């Protein structure tokens, strides 16, 4: 129960169903 010096706390959610087919932006030759 010690008091905490919080910088950031987060619930970081990923919604995969709404992703484009490829995450990175790389050379993109195959797109």
């Amino acid at each position, binding site marked *: 129960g010690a008091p*905490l010096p*919080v910088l950031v*706390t987060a619930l970081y959610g990923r919604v*995969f169903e709404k992703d484009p087919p490829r995450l990175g932006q*790389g050379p993109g030759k195959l797109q």
Partner: protein
Amino acid sequence: LDTFIAAVYEHAVILPNRTETPVSKDEALVLMNKNIDVLEKAVKLAATQGAHIIVTPEDGIYGWVFTRETIYPYLEDIPDPEVNWIPCRDPQRFGHAPVQERLSCLAKDNSIYVVANIGDKKPCNASDPQCPRDGRYQYNTDVVFDSEGRLVARYHKYNLFAPEVQFDFPKASELVTFDTPFGKLGVFTCFDIFSHDPAVVVVDELQVDSVLLPTAWYNTLPLLSAVPFHSAWAKALRVNLLAANTHNTTMHMTGSGIYAPEAVKVYHYDMETESGQLMLSELKSRPRREPTYPEAVDWRAYASSIEPFLSEQSEFQGMIYFDKFTFTELKKNRGNYTVCQKDLCCHLTYQMSEKRSDEAFVLGAFDGLHVVEGQYYLQICTLLKCQTTDLGTCGEPVGSAFTTFEEFSLSGTFGTSYVFPQLVLSGSQLAPERHYEVSRDGRLRNRS
């Protein structure tokens, strides 16, 4: 084996000089051998301490400053592991492969699994409409050699990053797993961890026990730094994660660790020196069979069960790493706030030891597609300290805080079951698990 000793080495990569034209194969090998000389020391040290496997970073053998042409001399033909090949015993079987030979011998001579990241080249021709003009594919590749030096895994990175112009995308996401005496392992690289294919598939469908992650991750505060994100991912996916990062303080590259589903075992974060770091830890080989295996969390259960907290306070917009958040300021030393954006509502209950006039904190919500340096859909609830009391600085990197929280409980009406819980304390230190917990109904809260 019920448990095994895992090792991860954060490596300060010896980078080649930037050149416009390709160096010779011999020069390329000289540079790679310099890096492998350093990795060899780590492998030997890890092996003498009983490690069963060691993971080294992405781009750890030759760095990342290349064009498509200048990386070519560094590449080797890496066969499919089905060929059952021990390069240390039969180095010439698949042509000139000095790097694979040396890595294989490191594994064999030290009786340890060695994971490294090198480059694969595959010839192609006009019959393949996607074949690049220079007649070859070049892939960012993880390789794994077992304790006999056998090539047991080869993985081509799927989610390349914008600057990785020296590599091609594989035609499809590869799901690379292999069995060991210490469980079923999966392997993918760096930014792949953000994806459903291969990252979630390897864990949920192929049911691996541990994931190996060579990475060259540059930290983006406050929410996308290596150690907080990787440890949160291991918690959320409930697998062991062995993450080996490159070390380069000018590029904010640091942050390696060995993470178990129930707790961070060891991590390393160093923005002060230019040294590499070896870390070891014992892990359970099959975490799902352990009594300590965390239960699944229903991330929206609590948040959707309560009414939003009402407040007269105005909200405001702020950017965190190019994403426009909705923020509301924590004006008092204790209270309840709700902030919403699109379908996501984030609830916070908190109590500070005291409300300092020289520090500002906000609750923020983001529900949208991130589109910079990658495109991926996020839903984020966050409590964070602003850089100064100017609310325009909320979302900027922050390193320290004097305000302490006696109580906090953060939750959100998430539309996904993949939520990564992070808690970073002043000094960019991860909060030990004894200080906080994630309840089954989706609250990230302090342990009282």
